[in-house]
């Protein structure tokens, strides 16, 4: 049942990651890997350390111990800038968008195309934003709308369109379906399928097993800062998975 | 002063005095402090000055602290008619001489037990400035029947300002001037003051006299004769 590790296929490999927050031992030596084009569901109870693990990958936190390999090479990720340069994009739990800024300003946040002297190429930004959203099947009225006027699903769409537009190699989705209506959830799951069709690897964190079971090809279950289980979808049913998550949370 | 340094013992050798003022963010008190230090130097004594940023409660605390240090004398700015009655009595009872400076109780010795008051009478200062100004104007042939006096003040409601304007009004009465207005100069910041006064003078072209009670540089606006009197001195 253990997943067989073929290193050269991995886009991401994290080895023996440890992280302390003051006196909280949040990650206790976690190994994690992600294959090219693969979608992994990262599961576990509240406080298991899921967000911490992926925030280390995205440069938001720095690990106290452990190594990260990206695309076969050992890398040091000290900041979100470093992660973005490698092609790691995050759609955060806490919304990776600036609510009062326009769609196009959000999509190009931190990577604005310029015409010279740092002046933004607004026309290019608008056109490419609309194109990126359309590729995802999202038709929005104008690239100038502030993000706060969009629905929850549309907002995740903007964040995902941004990841795809910048040719991410690995997209991290931290609870992208939380607090969304059924219709919006389906929209977002459709966006994630678009990521898969583009051949981009992704990590999908959620508490909703129904959402992740439909989409992911492999599941990693964490509890109290450790990896408990790593299984392929073909080896588990939805019920097995549900039991695994509950059991891991209860072990010692 | 150099020659005095060689004299056997300066007149106030070994004495310690304290100046309790309401002053604060205002260059006026820098000058006073310098003067106090110079005097102390000359007389061979020591002096400390307390500032309270126009906070009456804080100034009272400063006085209490000064009394506790048992200096040889305290000079106090008596900027309130009632607040200082008891603290001064207490200090005197403790055997510390207290005198008033800069501002006095409006009823003088009848209002406060301080040993004496050194400084000008605010009312009389206002009166004298008014007299001088109106006298000059009369010689120039200004018509007093329609005259208007503007009195911008830096700290609206401050005791000394009110008393001073009473003096100005007494002088006005002698010259038969009836129209006057006290205006809020907008504090100590000069751009604000200038903006206020410029606007006021434009809006009130009948203003014949402007008697300013602030530290800001005099403002020259050609309205009638606008004379700006700096009413600041101990």
């Amino acid at each position, binding site marked *: 049942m253990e997943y067989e590790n073929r290193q050269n296929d991995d886009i991401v490999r994290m080895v023996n990651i440890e992280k302390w927050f003051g006196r909280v031992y949040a990650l206790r030596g976690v190994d994690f890997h992600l294959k090219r084009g693969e979608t992994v569901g990262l599961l576990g109870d509240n406080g298991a350390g899921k967000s911490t693990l992926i925030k280390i990958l*995205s440069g*938001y936190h720095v690990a106290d111990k452990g190594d990260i390999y990206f695309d076969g090479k050992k890398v040091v990720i000290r*900041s*979100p*800038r470093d992660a*973005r*340069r490698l092609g790691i994009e*995050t759609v*955060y739990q*806490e*919304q*990776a*968008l*600036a*609510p*009062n*800024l326009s769609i196009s*300003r959000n999509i*190009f*946040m*931190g*990577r*604005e195309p*310029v015409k010279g*002297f*740092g*002046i*933004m190429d*607004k026309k290019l930004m608008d056109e490419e934003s609309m194109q990126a959203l359309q590729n995802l099947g999202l038709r929005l009225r104008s690239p100038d709308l502030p993000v*706060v*006027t969009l629905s929850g699903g549309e907002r995740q769409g903007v964040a995902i369109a941004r990841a795809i537009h910048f040719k991410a190699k690995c997209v991290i989705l931290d609870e992208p379906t939380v607090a969304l209506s059924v219709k919006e959830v389906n929209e977002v799951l459709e966006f994630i399928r678009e990521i898969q069709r583009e051949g981009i690897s992704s990590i999908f964190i959620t508490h909703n097993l129904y959402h992740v079971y439909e989409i992911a090809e492999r599941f990693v279950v964490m509890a109290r800062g450790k990896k408990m289980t790593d299984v392929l979808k073909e080896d588990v049913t939805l019920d097995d998975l549900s039991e695994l998550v509950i059991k891991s949370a209860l072990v010692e | 002063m150099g020659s005095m340094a060689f004299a056997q013992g300066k007149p106030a050798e070994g004495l310690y005095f304290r100046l309790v003022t309401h002053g604060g*963010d*205002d*260059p006026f*008190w*820098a*000058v006073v402090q*310098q003067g106090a230090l110079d005097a102390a130097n000359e007389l061979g004594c020591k002096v400390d000055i307390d500032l309270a940023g126009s906070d009456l409660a804080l100034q009272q605390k400063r006085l209490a602290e000064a009394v506790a240090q048992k200096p040889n004398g305290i000079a106090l700015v008596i900027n309130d008619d009632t607040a200082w009655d008891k603290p001064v009595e207490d200090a005197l009872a403790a055997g510390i001489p207290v005198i008033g400076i800069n501002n006095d109780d409006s009823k003088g010795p009848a209002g406060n037990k301080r040993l004496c008051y050194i400084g000008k009478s605010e009312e009389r200062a206002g009166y004298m400035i008014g007299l001088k100004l109106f006298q000059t104007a009369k010689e120039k042939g200004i018509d007093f029947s329609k005259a208007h006096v503007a009195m911008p003040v830096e700290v*609206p409601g401050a005791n000394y300002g009110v008393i001073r304007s009473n003096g100005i009004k007494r002088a006005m009465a002698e010259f038969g001037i009836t129209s006057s*207005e006290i*205006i*809020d100069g907008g*504090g*100590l*910041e*000069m*751009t*604000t003051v*200038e*903006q*206020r006064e*410029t*606007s*006021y003078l*434009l*809006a*009130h072209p009948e203003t014949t006299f402007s008697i300013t009670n602030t*530290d*800001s*540089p005099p403002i020259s606006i050609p309205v009638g004769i606008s004379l700006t009197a700096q009413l600041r001195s101990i």
Partner: protein
Amino acid sequence: MNQTRRFYSFRSSSTLVVFVTLVVVFSIFTPNHIFINERNIAALGKLFPDLGIIALGIGVLMICGEFDLSVGSVLPFCSFIFAQQMIADFSPFVSFFVSLLVGAILGLINGIITVKTKMPSFITTLGTLMFWRGILYVWSKMMPMSIRTFVPSGSPFQKLMAGNLNAYIPVQVIWFAIFAVILSILLHFHRFGNWIYSTGDNRDAAHAMGIRTDLVKIICFMIVGVLCGFSACMQSVRLGSFAATQGVGFEFKAISACVIGGTSLRGGIGSMTGIFLGALTIPIIDNGLILMRVPVFAISAFIGLATILFVLLNNYIERKTR
């Protein structure tokens, strides 16, 4: 109808409407239409930029999510440096650049303290407000310093900082306009502007997208510092002296101007047009009301009222357009 909606979707529209209304009302109802008299306009234009230029910087900083209360002390501090340099025989131009540099450094200090301690800038700059004022009082002994002999009326530097273009237009207005245009380009067209908005609107997102939010904030603090240095020189040259009471109360007046211009107190929202109009509106209310012979003691009440009403109005419009 659609056009009206579109118009109101800009936050600064309410400021514009109120601004135009005020100008029209004051022009018509002041005795002898003295509001639009050239002497009044020239007097306004000469005086309001002292605070106005600083308010432009404060607006940018507020969009970035921070406050700077220390401007009330940084301004006289720079003014003191400016006067001291000239007394030490440096040319007015050299002294001017030293003053700008000192402003930038004081801004840098504000920025670094705020960013590193992660304390609200309302607190850190309240600290530096009092700190620099204390240092200034001790250092200058609060004594006024005349600089008239170094920048006499008609000298090139005096003309540059406090001269007149013509009877209506004092040079201070031109400086105000120049800074408004520069900051407007920075905020709305330059990529750094997008970083300012993102940092103020959602710092985590901006950070996650690779924007160095700490650096962005520090630079905004420095912009305010430099503008304080500029305004300090402009004011000193006009007054012909340094005075320790320069800048008293500017900190809250500047914030109030920005709020009237539709800048959010929580960051991420605001525009240069709004801030520009806000910086003009307060002195116009002050001036217009006095011209209408409203008792001068009541002016403060009107400005306080206006600030609160603007915040309510902006919140209302925000809810309407969402």
